[in-house]
C-alpha cells in the first residue's frame, strides 16, 4: 500500500480529536525546527548587520543597517568577513583545517576501502582474528593520558602528521565498507579473477567503482569529523599554535576576554573602514563561528541522503 493510499484510508475517518492532534503535532515540529535553525540565522544576521546596532542589541530578527536620518533600515554589509583577514592566526588555522580535511579524509577512505575489501576475503590467513583485532578497538581505549604518552613516543606531538596518520584506520568505516562489499554480487569479482586479474586490480577496477556510494558516505562523515576536530589539536599541539585547527582557534577566541589588540594582528593592508568595523569582539567571534559553520551548511543539503544511508548501514553491522 503506497503512502497516498494509506493517507486516503486515514482520511475517511478523521475525527475532531484527530484534527486537534494533527495540528498540535505540526505546531510542535514547527517550533522545534525553528529552535534548531534560528540560532544559525541569528548568528548570520549579526555578522552582516551594522556593528553598532549589533552591539546595542537592536538586531533581533532581520539584518539592519543605519539609515541616513538616524533610524534603521533593512540591509546588509560584508565588511566583517573582509576584515577577518586581519584576525590573528585565523589564516593558518583555516589552512591547517582544510589540509587535514582533504588529506586525512582521502587517506582514511582509501584505507577503509582497502581493508574493508580484504576482510571480506575468506582465504586470508587468520581472517576472523584480524577482523576482530580491528573491530575491538572501537569499544576499548587505553585512556587519555596513555594515548597522549603514545603520541609523544611516536613523535606525533607538535606535528601535522598527528592529524592524518592515527585517523587512517577507522574500524567503524571498515565495517561499513565490508558490509557494503558483501552485498555486491560475488560473480562480478569471480569473473574478473578468472580473467586473471590480481587482488589489487579487482579492488581498483571492480570493488572501488561499485562501492562509490558507501565510500562517499564515509568520506562525508570523515570530512565533517576532520573539519570539527578540536580535541587532538588541544592535546597535541601545545608548542605549535600555527598548527591549531579552526575549532581550536575559535575556542580560544570565544574564551579570550582580553582586548582586541591580542586578536588583531598589527599593521597589514586592511582599509580603515574594515578595521573600524571590527571594533566589537563579539562580532569577531560571531564571524569566525559563521565561517566554520558555512562549509557544513553548504555541503549538508546535498549530502543528507548519504548521512541517512550511513546510519542505516551502521545499524546492520556484523
Amino acid at each position, binding site marked *: 500500500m503506497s503512502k497516498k493510499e494509506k*493517507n486516503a484510508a486515514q482520511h475517511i475517518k478523521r475525527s475532531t480529536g484527530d484534527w486537534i492532534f494533527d495540528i498540535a503535532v505540526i505546531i510542535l515540529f514547527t517550533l522545534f525546527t525553528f529552535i534548531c535553525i534560528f540560532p544559525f540565522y541569528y548568528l548570520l544576521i549579526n555578522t552582516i548587520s551594522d556593528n553598532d546596532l549589533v552591539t546595542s*542589541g537592536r538586531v533581533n530578527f532581520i539584518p539592519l543597517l543605519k539609515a541616513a536620518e538616524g533610524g534603521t533600515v533593512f540591509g546588509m554589509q560584508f565588511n566583517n568577513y573582509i576584515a577577518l583577514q586581519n584576525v590573528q592566526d585565523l589564516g593558518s588555522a583555516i589552512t591547517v583545517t582544510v589540509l587535514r580535511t582533504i588529506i586525512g579524509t582521502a587517506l582514511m577512505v582509501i584505507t577503509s576501502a582497502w581493508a574493508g575489501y580484504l576482510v571480506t576475503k575468506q582465504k586470508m590467513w587468520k581472517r576472523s582474528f584480524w577482523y576482530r583485532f580491528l573491530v575491538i578497538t572501537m569499544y576499548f581505549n587505553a585512556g587519555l593520558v596513555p594515548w597522549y604518552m603514545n603520541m609523544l613516543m611516536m613523535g606525533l606531538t607538535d606535528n601535522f602528521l598527528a592529524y592524518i596518520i592515527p585517523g587512517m584506520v577507522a574500524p567503524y568505516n571498515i565495517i561499513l565498507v565490508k558490509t557494503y562489499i558483501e552485498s555486491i554480487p560475488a560473480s562480478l569479482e569471480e569473473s574478473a579473477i578468472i580473467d586473471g586479474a590480481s587482488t589489487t586490480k579487482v579492488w581498483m577496477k571492480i570493488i572501488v567503482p561499485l562501492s562509490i556510494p558507501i565510500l562517499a558516505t564515509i568520506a562525508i562523515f570523515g570530512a565533517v569529523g576532520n573539519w570539527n576536530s578540536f580535541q587532538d589539536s588541544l592535546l597535541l599541539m601545545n608548542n605549535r599554535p600555527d598548527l591549531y585547527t579552526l575549532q*581550536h582557534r*575559535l*575556542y580560544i577566541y570565544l574564551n579570550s576576554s582580553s582586548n582586541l589588540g591580542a586578536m588583531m594582528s598589527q599593521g597589514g593592508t586592511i582599509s580603515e573602514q574594515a578595521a573600524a568595523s571590527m571594533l566589537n569582539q563579539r562580532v569577531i567571534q560571531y564571524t569566525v563561528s559563521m565561517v566554520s559553520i558555512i562549509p*557544513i551548511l553548504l555541503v549538508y543539503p546535498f549530502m543528507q541522503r548519504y548521512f541517512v544511508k550511513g546510519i542505516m548501514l551502521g545499524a546492520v553491522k556484523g
Partner: protein
Amino acid sequence: MQSTLKAREPQVQAASLSERIPLWIYRLMALLAGMALFFPPANPGRVSEKINEAASLFTTAVSRGTITNSMGRILRSQWIQDADITLLMIACAVVMLGVLACGAGACMSLGNTAMRKKGLLPSLLGGPVMAVGLFLIRLTYNRMLAHGTEVDKLDRIGIMLPGGFWVYCAFAGLLFLSALIALFTMDKDTHGQNRMEMDEKYKLFLMMLPVILLSFIFAYLPIWGWRYAFFDYKPGGTLSADNFVGFKWFGSLFNDPATVRDLLRVLRNTLIMSGLGIATSWLPIAFAVLLAEVRSTKFQRVVQTLTTIPNFISWVLVYAIAICIFSTDGFLNSFLTNVMHQTGANTNYLQIADHTWLKMLLWGTWKGIGWSAIIYIAGIAGIDQQLYEAARVDGANRFRCIWHITIPGLMPTYMVMLLMSIAGILSNGMEQYLVFENAMNKDVIEVLDLYVYHIGIGSNQIPLSTVVGISKSLVGVTLLFAANGISKAIRGESII
C-alpha cells in the same frame, strides 16, 4: 573453467620441518625487531640521558627535534656537537634499514621455494646492515664520550650505552644466524617452478599487514602507557626501580581523602548526566513516531533535514551559539530589552550554575535528537503496512496502532541503543563539558573524562590520571560485555 582456475592456483611446495623452524624463528625475530622500532625502551640510539626518554628508534632516526628538545644549553655550548647528532640519526636510519630488509625477507619467506630463495638475500643482508648501524651508534657514543671528556662536561651530558643497543645486537645476531641456518636447511629444489608465487592466504595477509600495524600502533600500543600507573612519575622524569610504587596510586583512589572527594563528585556528575541521557533516550522514538503521523511527506522531509543540522557542528560551535543566544549581549537579553521592553535584562545565563545538568541534557538533546530519530524513522518505514491495515479493520484507532504496532516494531533497535548507552555510562566524552565549563559551574559540570583531562594534561598528575583512566576502561569493558550478555540472553543476538 574449473581447469583454468586450478592452473592459476599457485602450487606451493610444503616445506619440511627442519626448514620451517629457522624460518619461523626468523619471522618472529623480524616481527619483534620491527615492533621495537616504535618502542622507546628498546631504542639503541639513546646514547645520552638528555635524549628524550620517549623517543623510539624510529623517532630518533627521523626527528631531530625530538632528540634535541631537552638539550638547549648542551647544544648551545657545543657539549654535544651537531655533527654527532646527525651521525646518530644516520646510524639509527641504517639500523632501521636493516630491520626493513629483514622484514622484507620475512614476508618473502611465506612464498614458494623460488620466492623463499630470493628472500634469503635480504634476510642474510639485514643482520649485517643492522650491525653496521649499531657500529655507527657505537662510534657516535665514542665520539661523544671523547668530546665530552675534552670539554669536561661528561656529568652534564650523561653519555651512556642504552640497553636497547644490546637488544638490537641480539636481534642482529639472531636474525643473521637463523637466516644462515635457513640457507643450509632449505630445500633448494624448485621442481622447475621458477616463478615467485605465494599462497593466496599469506598474500592477502601481507596486504592487510600495514592496516594491522597502524591499528596496533595507535590503538593497542597505548596500553603500554599503563605502566605510568605504577610509578611516581613526573613529566620529564624517568621510570626506574627507585620510583616504582606498585599499587599505591590505585590505593589512593580509596585512601586519599582529596582524591576520594573529587572522584565522588565527578562520578556523581557523570552518572547523573548519563542517567538523564538514558532516561530521555525514548525521546527520539517519540520524535519519529509523531513525525510519521504528519501526513505531508514534504513537511516530514524538511523537518528531518533541518533538525539534523545541529548534529554536524562541533561542540565549540554549539558553545558559540550558546554565547550568541544566552550571553549578556546575546539574543535573549536584547529580545527582552528591545522587544519586551524589560529593563535591566543583562543576565549572562551561561555563568549561572543552576540546573547545569538539565542544561547540558537540553543542549545534548538539541544537538542529537534529529539525528537519533533517523534510525527510528527508517525503522517505521520498514514496518509491514498490512499490520496497520489489519488493525484498522479490527477497529483500532491511530493511538492503538502506534502503541501496539509501531512501538513494538521499534523496540529491538531501541534495546540495542539502550544497552550501548548503559555500557557507555562512564564515557560521556569531554568536549561538551569542556566548552561549557566556567568558574561558576566547575563543580557540577566536571565529568570523568574531563576530570582525567584536567588532572592528567592540566595539572600533570600523570600516574593518578592513568589510574583513573585504567579503572574507567576496565569498568567500561565489563559493562559492555555484560550488556552484550544480556542482549544475547534476551534477544539471542550480540550487539558488538
